[in-house]
């Protein structure tokens, strides 16, 4: 009897767990009452809502919060400056939502933004959420600038509303593949990716470029964007003795993976993309990060006009920059610049201006090609030295 009891109680249990999985960290930091009119008049002032979406809970929440802060800083500065568009004083209002890095939540958040009639969206952080959400924004004619989604598909869907201020996977993967084979001396290369739109996309582009560079791909293993145990796949990789190990994924996995790589006595050079290029990566690798390489689109902040100033201001206000905050800052500013040029906050009016804009951001000089991708992006390679990411060199994506 006992075991039938067990089975009996298991069925509702499983249903409940599934429900719990989807719901448990559903917190949002919306500052406004939903359903309020988008452009509420407040004493001759026009309120313009800007949506921002990133994972604010879960393994990537430190990055999501960083994005939120970068966006918030740009919006606060614009409000402090007092911008006038279309003869009215504009006050920007940030609506920040948590998409949990989950594609399903991404579309829910997108629909929320559409319902609240935001005039533009900064986000999402992940490619996996950005791509499904982009269709919703396109259907509603809302301009979307992703600070960090790199998957090629995002801008290749033919949506006029989709932009990004970051090099895509094809550009970054190419540079990484070139770097691994030419600068790091990679002959036998192993790849791990997290099977997310970002990780898989970057790994595939890297693979192409590495093969072009004459390297041999000796292993391609997979993990997930929630995993913490990589011992099994690393053991397998150890047996083929690669000289370079590339990881396509975020720092929450990359850091612990780095620790386990060295723990298994694997001596391959470790290389990862922008998702791993954070102080968090070094912290999570717990003393084993030394020598790891990563790449980050754009120029090093200190080399950009205004970059250093941004760094100082941001650090004073929110602490250490994690990763994409400067890109969010640029995304907001380029959006506002387009609104000013068009003298309108309506997406239909400022979109053509945005498409043809040239803007000096803190990460790079921003202008978009016909798809909404960044033109002539630069990629900077970093390496961990004495517990810090140090600039190695900057390469053009061409």
């Amino acid at each position, binding site marked *: 009897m006992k075991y039938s009891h067990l089975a009996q109680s298991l069925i509702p249990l499983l249903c409940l767990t599934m429900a719990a999985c989807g719901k448990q960290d559903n917190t949002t930091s919306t500052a406004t009452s939903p359903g309020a009119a988008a452009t509420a008049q407040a004493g001759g002032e026009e309120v313009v809502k800007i949506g921002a979406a990133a994972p604010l809970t879960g393994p990537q929440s430190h990055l999501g919060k960083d994005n939120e802060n970068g966006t918030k800083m740009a919006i606060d500065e614009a409000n402090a400056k007092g911008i006038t568009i279309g003869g009215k004083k504009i006050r920007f209002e940030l609506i920040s939502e948590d998409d949990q890095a989950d594609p399903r939540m991404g579309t829910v958040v997108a629909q929320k933004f559409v319902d609240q009639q935001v005039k533009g969206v900064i986000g999402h952080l992940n490619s996996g959420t950005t791509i499904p959400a982009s269709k919703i924004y396109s259907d509603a004619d809302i301009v979307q600038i992703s600070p960090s989604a790199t998957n090629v598909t995002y801008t290749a869907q033919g949506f006029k509303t989709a932009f990004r201020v970051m090099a895509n996977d094809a550009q970054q993967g190419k540079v990484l593949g070139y770097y691994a084979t030419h600068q790091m001396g990679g002959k036998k290369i192993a790849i791990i990716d997290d099977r997310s739109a970002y990780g898989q996309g970057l790994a595939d582009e890297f693979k192409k470029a590495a093969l072009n560079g004459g390297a041999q791909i000796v292993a391609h293993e997979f993990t997930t964007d929630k995993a913490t145990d990589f011992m099994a796949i690393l053991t397998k990789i150890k047996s083929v003795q690669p000289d370079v190990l590339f990881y396509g994924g975020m720092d929450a996995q990359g*850091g612990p993976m780095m620790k386990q790589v060295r*723990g298994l006595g694997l001596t391959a050079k470790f290389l990862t993309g922008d998702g791993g290029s954070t102080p968090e990566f070094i912290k999570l690798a717990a003393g084993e990060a030394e020598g790891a390489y990563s790449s980050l689109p754009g120029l090093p902040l200190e080399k950009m006009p205004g970059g250093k100033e941004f760094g100082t201001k941001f650090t004073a206000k929110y602490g250490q920059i994690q990763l994409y905050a400067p890109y969010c800052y640029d995304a907001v500013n380029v959006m506002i610049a387009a609104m000013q040029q068009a003298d309108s906050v309506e997406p239909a009016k400022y979109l053509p201006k945005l498409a043809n804009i040239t803007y000096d951001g803190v990460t790079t000089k921003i202008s978009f090609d016909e798809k909404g991708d960044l033109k002539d992006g630069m990629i900077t390679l970093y390496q961990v030295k004495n517990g810090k990411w140090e600039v190695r060199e900057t390469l053009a994506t061409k």
Partner: protein
Amino acid sequence: MDIFLQQLINGLVLGSIYALVALGYTMVYGILELINFAHGEITMIGAMVSLAVINLLIGSSLDLPGVMIVFMGVLTAIPACMALGFVIERVAYRPLRNAPRLAPLITAIGVSIVLQNAAMLIWGRQYISFPPIIPIYRYEILGATISNLQIFIFIFSALLMAGLIMLVHKTRLGRAMRATAQSPQAASLMGVNVNNIIAITFILGSALAAIAGVMVGAYYGLAHYYMGFLLGLKAFCAAVLGGIGNIAGAMLGGLLLGVIESLGAGYIGDLTGGFLGSHYQDVFAFLVLILVLVFRPSGLLGERVVERA
């Protein structure tokens, strides 16, 4: 062969942690026939509390050796989790002891969500790294690498489990636990304070969970507020695999599950010709759960159990 050996070592270390957590499920189920779904979260709280203490000690001016600091962390985490286990039983399960079966199960899930969110509020939502203060030495055995930490985790879990078996079979308390498991009514007629025994069971299980939590934290070098969720689910699968309610079964189930996962993730790509990749690692636990429930619902060692505790 060296790869197989390495996967086996990885699996046994992982498995001994699963086994420690699975014991908590199985002890409670043995006595109450309740799946204490908050057990995984107790593991998480154990890791978090020890981490907080460890970081505090590192930050302090005391110049203690790394092993000592971790030891202090464990010593704080154990009583904290024991108290937590006691309170959970008192608040969430005891009032529902005679309620329909589903009610305590739902409160268990409720407690689990409450604990997760409390941890998120206290410690934040990001991954917290476990400071690398234990000196790590690596040894080569037949081409496989094993670290002192891995050896320690394996041996220490084995000792804890042996201790638990001794406790259940050789002491008065153990006898009372076994009696309560067989029939709470009869046990109370024989002068066993059933409420106390149940509370002690929760406390013991929570202490093991606290130790497991610190082990996971130290092994992977990180902790976060929902680390207990998947760990708890897998340990539960391990308990069912071994035969839930059976203490030796939980140990066997835990070790087996660890090895199955490790070997599974290592070889699934080759076996399916690349159709299924190693990212399906987490699937094995649940596959095992389904297979066991279909073909051998009583688990590997669960048949005709006379003694449960």
